[in-house]
């Protein structure tokens, strides 16, 4: 499993700042649809009990209804779980040294990107829409100087706060790198 205490390729002095996922509200439409689907077999069963009781009085037909309803429910439940797993496994991890972007694509696809925080050039946060504004979630776009030009945090909670923190961390890390470089030059000259 992925441990936040033991990130891959650890950097000395690294501390976890954020571990972000999409806002849970983004699951709302899926959950509502799936709840309707999951309740459908029970609703149909109730309908048949009230309006077609002769159908269910026959044990053979009752068995057919139960077999079909149970399979439908179990597959719908699995589908809901798979979509939840897809949501849960998309992570954006911000430490004081780097940003990790882990995206799950389907069941067997996974992309992990890493960005050293001092390479960040620009951070933009955006909150667009009624529900986004009410629940304060949106996108954070990070422009970099690295191979991958852009990192995008999608629909994360409190994007303005996250963007501000990343900018501050980038400033601190850049200053630390500058200080190290100056010290190395000074040491080299002294030698």
């Amino acid at each position, binding site marked *: *499993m*992925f*441990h*936040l205490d033991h990130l891959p390729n650890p950097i000395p002095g690294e501390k976890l700042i954020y*571990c972000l996922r999409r806002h849970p509200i983004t699951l709302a439409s899926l959950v509502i649809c799936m709840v309707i689907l999951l309740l459908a077999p029970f609703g149909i069963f109730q309908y048949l009990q009230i309006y*077609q009781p002769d*159908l269910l009085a026959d*044990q*053979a*037909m009752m*068995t*057919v209804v*139960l*077999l079909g309803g*149970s*399979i439908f*429910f*179990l*597959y719908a*439940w*699995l589908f809901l*779980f*798979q979509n*939840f*797993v897809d949501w*849960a*496994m998309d*992570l954006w991890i911000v430490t004081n040294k780097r940003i990790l972007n882990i995206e*799950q694509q389907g*069941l*067997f696809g*996974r992309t992990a990107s890493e960005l050293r925080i001092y390479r960040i050039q620009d951070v933009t946060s955006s909150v667009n829409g009624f529900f986004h504004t009410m629940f304060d979630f949106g996108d954070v776009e990070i422009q970099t100087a690295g191979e991958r030009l852009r990192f995008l945090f999608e629909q994360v909670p409190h994007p303005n706060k996250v963007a501000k923190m990343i900018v501050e961390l980038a400033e601190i890390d850049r200053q630390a790198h500058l200080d190290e470089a100056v010290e190395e030059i000074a040491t080299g000259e002294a030698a």
Partner: protein
Amino acid sequence: MPLAWLLLVWLVLIAILFIMSFLTLLVYLRFGLFGLSTYGSTLLFLIVSAIMLGFIIQYLINVDWSQTVNPLSPFMAFFEV
């Protein structure tokens, strides 16, 4: 159609469901974030699935599988004049 044929179809679908569930859980527990939410959601999925399967199996144990059935008979009623 013998009722046992429908049971066979159901069992095949359940077997496919087991395989897909196993693969999903394998990926989730192997690559997911360590924590209560991962274990909790996994347990919830397994418990609800087990409860549903338990209820169905309890009913299916008492069914006479030698019966025959026409699964389309409820729909045929719509076409009767």
